[in-house]
């Protein structure tokens, strides 16, 4: 139960070990290089498998192989590398394979920059790869939350037989906070009779996402949709900060949420009561947090380190009942709390 001071990427590496990971396959990309660097030592010390693959494409396919044969497996990358992995991710989802993917987000598009960003929201929650599928996706804001979520993700991935993605950004990956690695969950290691690891006298298993008969593929897709419905019902996670009687509500996640926490304290001193809805799961999006809307609420300000991607989900959830405005900075620029304060004030003025 003791707390230790850790760098974000190191906490991610150690959390995966606590989550029972058997194998890591990854490739260097800034700003997550410490994850494979730490794991190259920790995994070897623990007698587990570590391999730096020749590309992110190769890495996600090694993940696919290890998962298909029944192991708990992790990969980590950053936005452009996650783009490369999309084919592998849709195959994992289609073949119903568990895995955990860490995305330490950086600015894009293309090679972009190495500074923090939240412009992967579409890539993460709207597919990224082909077909009707989703990854269970979380966006923690601090290291303790990151560690708890990663530990739980291996169980969730196994339970749903689906990839799970944890999206942090370069700031979270690089910052240092104190963390209790042993807190929270107990692992649920489940049997995997479906895994292809040698039929051992039984019936052979096939792991595939190929179904050439359209009716068979439709049935398979309906089965996948059932899983996603279960996730939508049971896996929404959100934090509500100060939203009772709030005049405005900010919606933000990850590092942006931390900036907004400072902003609402500054606004409180000026007599403006602002709350925060902080999605912790970004897929499924916590629509439940928007079902009852206070009549006194004047509007939502969606704050993202992008040009507005999550805002689509707020618009869908709010459905025109209240105004929804946007504040964001992109390109890797991290906004200051005063900018959020100014955005709220501007919104307040425009709504008079």
């Amino acid at each position, binding site marked *: 139960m003791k707390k230790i001071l850790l760098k974000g990427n190191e906490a991610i590496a150690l959390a995966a070990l606590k989550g029972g990971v*058997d*194998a890591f*396959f990854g490739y260097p990309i800034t700003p997550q290089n410490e994850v494979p660097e730490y794991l190259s030592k920790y995994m070897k010390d623990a007698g587990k*498998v570590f*391999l730096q*693959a*020749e*590309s992110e*494409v*190769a*890495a996600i*396919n*090694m*993940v*696919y*192989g*290890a*998962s*298909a*044969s029944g*192991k708990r*497996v992790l990969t980590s990358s950053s936005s452009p590398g996650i783009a490369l992995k999309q*084919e*592998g991710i849709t*195959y994992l989802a289609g*073949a119903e394979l568990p895995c955990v993917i860490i995305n330490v987000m950086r600015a894009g598009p293309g090679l972009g920059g190495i500074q923090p960003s939240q412009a992967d929201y579409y890539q993460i929650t709207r597919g990224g790869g082909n077909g009707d599928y989703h990854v269970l996706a979380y966006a923690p804001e601090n290291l303790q939350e990151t560690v708890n979520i990663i530990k739980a993700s291996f169980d969730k991935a196994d339970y749903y037989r689906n990839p799970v993605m944890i999206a942090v950004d370069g700031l979270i990956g690089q910052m240092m906070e104190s963390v209790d690695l042993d807190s929270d969950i107990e692992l649920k290691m489940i049997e995997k009779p479906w895994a*292809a*690891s*040698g*039929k*051992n*006298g039984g019936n*052979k*298993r*096939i*792991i*595939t*996402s*190929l179904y050439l008969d359209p009716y068979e593929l439709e049935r398979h897709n309906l089965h996948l949709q059932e899983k996603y419905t279960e996730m939508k019902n049971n896996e929404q996670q959100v934090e509500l900060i100060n939203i009772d009687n709030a005049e405005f509500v900010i919606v933000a996640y990850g590092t942006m949420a931390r900036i907004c926490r400072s902003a609402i304290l500054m606004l409180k001193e000026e007599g403006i009561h602002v709350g925060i809805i902080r999605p912790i799961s970004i897929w499924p999006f916590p629509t439940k947090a928007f079902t009852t809307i206070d009549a006194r609420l004047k509007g939502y300000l969606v704050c993202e380190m992008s040009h507005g991607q999550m805002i689509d989900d707020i618009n869908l959830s709010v459905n025109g009942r209240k105004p929804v405005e946007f504040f964001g900075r992109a390109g890797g620029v991290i906004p200051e709390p005063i900018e959020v304060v100014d955005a709220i004030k501007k919104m307040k003025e425009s709504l008079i």
Partner: protein
Amino acid sequence: MNDIIYQKTKGLTNQAMSYCPGCTHGIIHKLVAEVLEEMNLLNHTVGIASVGCSVMSYYYFDCDMIQASHGRACAVATGVKRTHPNNIVFTYQGDGDLASIGIAETIHAANRGENITVIFINNGIYGMTGGQMAPTTLLGKKTTTSPYGRNIEDHGMPIKIAEMFATIPKVAYLERLSVGTPQKVKKAKKSIEKAIRYQQEGKGFTMLEFLSTCPVNWGLTPIEAIKYAEKEMTEYYPLGVFKDVDQDA
């Protein structure tokens, strides 16, 4: 009283294979399955199916099978073998899968000396998708994407995979084979057995390049196609052992 001289191996399922009549995929599948059955390995083998005509080979081999996306079979095999070192792991890949989209994954698996066996089916054309040019298509050959014939200026020379991979230190056993005559079929089976044995002994990466046919897309009868493989293809892609750590030592 009748003794069985030859019958269908238990390493293959009862599923009818979807390959074209006379395609040598069927012969090579048979040999791999026979070896795994005779070495008593079907229960401990995981095969990686690739994308190409053999995409549904996971229905035909009677062992656990994993379907890999196009070109990635060696990476998938790496994921399986590294986490299950006591399983026998093989990939079964065509020339598009191994030498085009998958060349990086194949080279790196070989370079790391992954203890897997790669069955490489080289028929110099993309069969499943209707006969497009492959990295291993011979010079001058007309395909649907080289209607005037492959030429050096536009397409470069056909890639010699066995020769290339022979330069990689951790390749333990590498042979280019044909299945164009009954004698060569018997010899090929012995080579497969040797490759699997090397895998069992942890010697490193093993690969068998089979010169194979594509009667339909070559526009030849199955017998004419085998003759093309035996003559024109063998002239450019010579048969033989390119690497054997036990002999070369």
